[in-house]
């Protein structure tokens, strides 16, 4: 090895060590774990190799509940947050005064602690002996009977989870979309203006096709992010998510690993691999669809 080669590797060494130990090795290991049956945490031994872990996880009602929750969350929040972010970004791009202020305000949820602000959301929605909660009181003005959003019916809890998730993920989408909209050459808008194109048509026929790569990027990352939902749910419903029927796949993985029901890294690994396969499949489908519909 030449002197130069050695030097290059030397500079890379810290990064390679850390990535190797904490990213590459675990990546391989998780697949191995997921096939090791009856793994004993304390002794590090296992009884056999096979698909039992997967079979167990797929039959576990907690996992099925988590899968259902995650899917509902994905199906609702990804389209809703993308559409809302699109609407906000278009509005934001059309104004001059106060634009910076709005942009800064909208970004705020991105930098705040999900757990901490989730607590505020919980209190706004929660019914206690002392109050019906702020949201219920506002709904009361419209004649809606008070609902226990945090400890009540399933759909109410899911609604709060979706709303909070949307609130958390929208800043990222807004900032990416406003950037994309700003990069559309204004000459197209002038051309459309001379031809008397309505706002709606300008949006659907010009803006949207031109920023379609960005929109698809956001949908893909949105799917991936929503499938990994966890801390939003913890913030609202506490650490025992199985009890509140609000667990997610990632939550299930951690519960299997650690905590009251923990100590089963094999089951956790199997669940993680299942999640990985789902996300990979959805991403591939997304990419295929986007190839068809994105115009560049």
């Amino acid at each position, binding site marked *: 090895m030449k002197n*130069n*080669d*050695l*030097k*290059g*590797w030397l*500079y*890379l060494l810290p*990064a390679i060590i850390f*990535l190797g130990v*904490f*990213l590459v090795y*675990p*990546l391989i*290991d998780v697949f191995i774990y997921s096939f090791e049956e009856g793994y004993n945490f304390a002794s*590090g031994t296992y009884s056999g190799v096979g698909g039992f872990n997967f079979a167990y996880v797929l039959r576990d009602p907690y996992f099925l509940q988590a899968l259902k929750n995650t899917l509902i969350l994905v199906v609702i929040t990804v389209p809703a947050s993308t559409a809302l972010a699109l609407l*906000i970004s278009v*509005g934001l791009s059309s*104004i001059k005064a106060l634009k910076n202020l709005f*942009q800064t*305000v*909208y*970004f*705020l*949820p*991105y*930098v*705040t*602690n*999900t*757990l*901490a*602000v989730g*607590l*505020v*959301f919980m*209190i*706004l929605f929660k019914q*206690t002996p*002392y*109050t019906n909660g*702020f949201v219920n*009181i506002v709904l009361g003005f419209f004649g809606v009977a008070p609902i226990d959003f945090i400890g009540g019916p399933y759909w109410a809890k899911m609604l709060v989870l979706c709303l909070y998730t949307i*609130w*958390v*993920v929208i800043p*990222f*989408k807004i*900032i990416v979309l406003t*950037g994309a909209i700003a990069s559309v050459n204004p000459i197209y808008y002038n051309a459309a203006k001379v031809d008397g194109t309505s*706002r709606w048509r300008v949006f659907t026929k010009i803006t949207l096709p031109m920023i379609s790569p960005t929109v698809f990027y956001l949908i893909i990352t949105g799917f991936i992010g929503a499938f990994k939902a966890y*801390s939003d749910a*913890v913030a609202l419903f506490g*650490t025992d998510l199985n009890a509140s029927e609000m667990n997610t796949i*990632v939550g299930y*993985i*951690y519960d299997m690993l*650690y905590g009251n029901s923990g100590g089963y*890294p094999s089951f956790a690994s199997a669940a*993680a691999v299942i999640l990985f396969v789902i996300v990979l499949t959805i991403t591939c489908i997304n990419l295929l669809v986007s190839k068809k519909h994105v115009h560049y």
Partner: protein
Amino acid sequence: MDYEKIEKATERRKKAVKSVTYVFLTLWAIVVLFPFYWMVLTSFKGYGAYNSEWVPKLYTLSPTLQNYKDAFTEVPLGDYFINTVIFTLITTALMVVITVLAAFAFSRLQFYGRDLVFTIFLTLMMIPGELVVITNFVTITNLDLRNTFTGLILPSVTSVFYIYLLKENFAQIPNELYYAAKVDGTSDLRYLLKVMVPICKPTIVTVTVLKVIECWNSYVWPRLITDDAAYFLVSNGIQEIRENGFGRDNIPAMMASVVVISLPLVVLFVIFRKKIMAGVSRGGMKG
């Protein structure tokens, strides 16, 4: 054609669209800001006052600092806070050093296998953290590093994305500068520290600030690796406070804790607003 009518109608329509836009944007601003307002407001309400309001008031006439006192005395919020500061500082510092060295190697040094390694690095960007957390948990447990700062920090120090970001920035520095320095007999390390780092300071600051935010908000890994409250970070701390905190549902005191936890990041955001937003729009990590 009645031109005057058309002109007026256009003018009216323009104004209407503008008003609707502003109303809509203001509404969303309220949706975003209201939880923050609520949290600050509640943190200044007395325990008794808060619980006596069946319909919560949107203002308070008798603000109190008692909740903040409680947050630091009745629960170890101060400890959580200090733990998080230690964790964030060390992790970020290590991350910056490793990232700068790796980005330098990728962007400036010529060595065998460089492009292959870089491709592998790029592939690593796509690996979801959830996949590797399991083995890391086992590794750290086996190394007897649970409930230590070492165990908290080690798996958190590398970020392929930041290496990539900085490498792109380093690569923009013209080669001539490097050759000029070589001719003058400057060592690689000196060149890196005296030329590249100062030139790319904006990106390094962006990366640093983003990492600080990430560390401050990290929840999953600390939760797995610490069960001793003495090593809790703020995210776990707030969860602990919520579930076993003040002995009763002392929501104003909880809100005071939330304010204390959130404040450093809001201040950081106000200072580095432009850098953070620019960095995030190039591909953030949360979303």
